[in-house]
């Protein structure tokens, strides 16, 4: 209970304090302090041996899935908090609105953690909505019309996507009520097979939930908000959206799939496969066409979401690989978006054709972009390589040869298009931008994220590996 209070209530309480105007001068320091405390609580929770039982155990569910993802998102939030603290300390003019920003970021953190530890799917939905509502003001930059429009489009698509998700949950509840089953949708409670008569409600519910959560994850067809929002938001906020919010939305989808795969196995698989393939195809075309560094990473995120949907469709055979891929994806996005922000601030542009000679101008950012891109493209020794390999192997093993072929072609095209755009930025001749002395110490969060990516691909510490294996078993359960 103590740990759970730290994960959700402490950030909320500090956010409230900041919102009423107290301690605003120390807002960035408080952000770092709270995120460190919450990360420590998440690590302690992840290493604790048994499920929490207590007076509120009907409300919370701290199982392997919660533990694994608490362990992933909280350090990322902590890294972003350190980045924000450093930006505020070194950039004149940023300290003005930091109280409000820190307050919203802490509510975002509390909501994200709540999604991971709540038992009821509608409770998780409420927490996810909360993160979307506080993210919209974070996307908008004062006086920048394009970012305000992007914030509105983000909010609109989030509201519609999550509205469809809630509608889906209501349909599921109806179907279960008709079948005489307990309709309270709780994670970890297995559902029986349904009769033909009850199936239409649950089928409709499942499709609506997949469409709605697909919108939040950037899956086709409702993903047009994503490139714009990721492009216009400040880099720290983009990192939070891409790494933290994406991951918690995915956990909600994992819970739904876990519940409904035994009820409608065919529908779950085929819907996720098609959503994944369409997302990969659409994003590949966009990666080829774009000349904007942040949009390029945003389209690559859509591509990754597609791979994840395909992995999720395959079930047991791809479960371990999928988890490695999801964890790597969170760290890759955090690295790339923070680095892209630094680069575009130095060059004064996001146009990839105007950004050259990164290794000379911004050596650390150049190296981070290079390593992050290799991880993004699924090169060894990163976790994304192993994850993608296992998903591909599961595709072959399950006999989906056409999907395997399409997957291979799309991944190759993405590789060529991304390399063609990014590699000249890193190794090209220096033409624009200012040479800047960078401190490795201040790039600490990015270095830690990169280290996590290598660890996921080379040697996963035994307790973490055991946790991933246990989650994979949960996902594979019939």
């Amino acid at each position, binding site marked *: 209970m103590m740990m759970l209070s730290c994960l959700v209530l402490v950030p909320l309480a500090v956010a409230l304090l900041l919102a009423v105007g107290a301690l605003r001068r120390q807002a960035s320091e408080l952000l770092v302090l709270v995120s460190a405390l919450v990360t420590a609580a998440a690590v302690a929770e992840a290493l604790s041996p048994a499920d929490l039982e207590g007076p509120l155990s009907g*409300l919370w569910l701290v199982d392997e899935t919660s533990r694994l993802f608490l362990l992933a998102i909280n350090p990322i939030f902590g890294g972003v908090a350190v*980045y*924000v603290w450093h*930006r*505020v300390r070194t*950039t*004149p*003019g*940023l300290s003005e609105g930091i109280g409000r*920003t820190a307050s919203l970021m802490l509510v975002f953190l509390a909501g994200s953690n709540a999604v991971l530890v709540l038992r*009821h799917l*509608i*409770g998780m939905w*409420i927490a996810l*909505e*909360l993160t979307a*509502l506080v993210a*919209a*003001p974070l996307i*908008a*930059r*004062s*006086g*920048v*019309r394009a970012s*305000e429009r992007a*914030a*509105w489009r983000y*909010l*609109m698509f989030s*509201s*519609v996507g999550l*509205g*469809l998700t*809630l*509608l889906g949950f*209501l*349909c599921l*509840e*109806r179907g279960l*009520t008709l079948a005489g089953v307990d*309709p*309270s949708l709780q994670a970890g409670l297995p559902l029986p097979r349904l009769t033909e*008569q009850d199936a*239409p*409600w649950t089928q*409709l519910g499942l499709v609506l939930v997949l469409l709605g959560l697909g919108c939040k994850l950037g899956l086709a067809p409702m993903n047009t908000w994503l490139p714009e929002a990721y492009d216009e938001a*400040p*880099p*720290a*906020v983009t990192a939070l959206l891409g790494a933290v919010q994406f991951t918690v939305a995915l956990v909600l989808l994992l819970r739904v799939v876990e519940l409904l795969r035994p009820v409608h196995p065919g529908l779950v698989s085929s819907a996720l496969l098609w959503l994944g393939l369409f997302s990969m195809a659409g994003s590949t075309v966009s990666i080829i066409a774009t000349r904007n560094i942040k949009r390029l990473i945003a389209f690559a995120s859509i591509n990754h979401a597609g791979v994840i949907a395909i992995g999720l469709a395959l079930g047991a055979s791809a479960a371990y690989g999928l988890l490695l891929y999801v964890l790597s994806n969170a760290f890759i996005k955090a690295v790339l978006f923070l680095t892209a*922000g630094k680069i575009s*601030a130095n060059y004064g542009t996001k146009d990839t054709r105007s950004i050259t000679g990164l290794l000379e101008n911004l050596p650390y950012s150049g190296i981070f972009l290079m390593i992050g891109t290799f991880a993004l493209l699924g090169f060894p020794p990163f976790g994304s390589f192993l994850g993608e390999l296992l998903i591909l192997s599961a595709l072959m093993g399950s006999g989906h040869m056409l999907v395997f072929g399409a997957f291979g072609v799309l991944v190759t095209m993405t590789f060529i298009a991304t390399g063609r755009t990014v590699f000249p930025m890193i190794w090209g001749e220096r033409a624009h931008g200012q040479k800047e002395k960078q401190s490795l110490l201040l790039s600490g969060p990015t270095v830690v994220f990169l280290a996590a990516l290598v660890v996921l691909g080379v040697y996963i510490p035994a307790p973490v590996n055991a946790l991933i294996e246990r989650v994979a078993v949960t996902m594979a359960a019939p």
Partner: protein
Amino acid sequence: MLLVLLAVLLVPFYFGSWKVAVVGLSAQGILLFSLAALGAEGQAPELNWLELVDLLVVRGLAAPLVLALGARGMEALVEKRRSPPNLVVWTLAFGLVLGAFTFAPRLAPEAGSGQVAVAVAIAAVMLALLVLSTQTGTMEQMTGVLRLENAVALLELGADHHTRVAWLQVGQLTVLVLTLAVFSWVLAKERAPEPAPETPEGPSL
């Protein structure tokens, strides 16, 4: 009453004014409240105070008020951005309602008010998506989002929702209130004067 609600859902498609859309939202909230208060299919109403606040105060009064206040000073702009009603939209709206009534028997095979309620809920969802896909102005898109929220509430009214624990109801209501607060912030940003074109962008986090 369900058919009155259906009419209220359709009327804004036939008028080119955003004011009709906002009044329509208010009418939807009040009708939803009436449906909840009177009870369905001869059942005794089990309205609790949370539903009273949700349906009547928030959906029926606060939501339209937020939009109306948000549009102050930019009525002409809102009107200009609104896509005018046309034959294509009318046909689509009518077709979606027809489709909803055709599809409803697959979900609720027994003819009666339960089936009509499902049909109207499906129609409400489809019409909300029609608004969202045909309108480009912020205000209109907000009415589309709120229409979708109302459609969710309508489906919930037909379900055995009283079994839901109170904290979830409070959570859902809080989300709706916060959504309106953020809508109000978005409209305030839209009302603010355009920054001068030569104004340089400040640093960002």
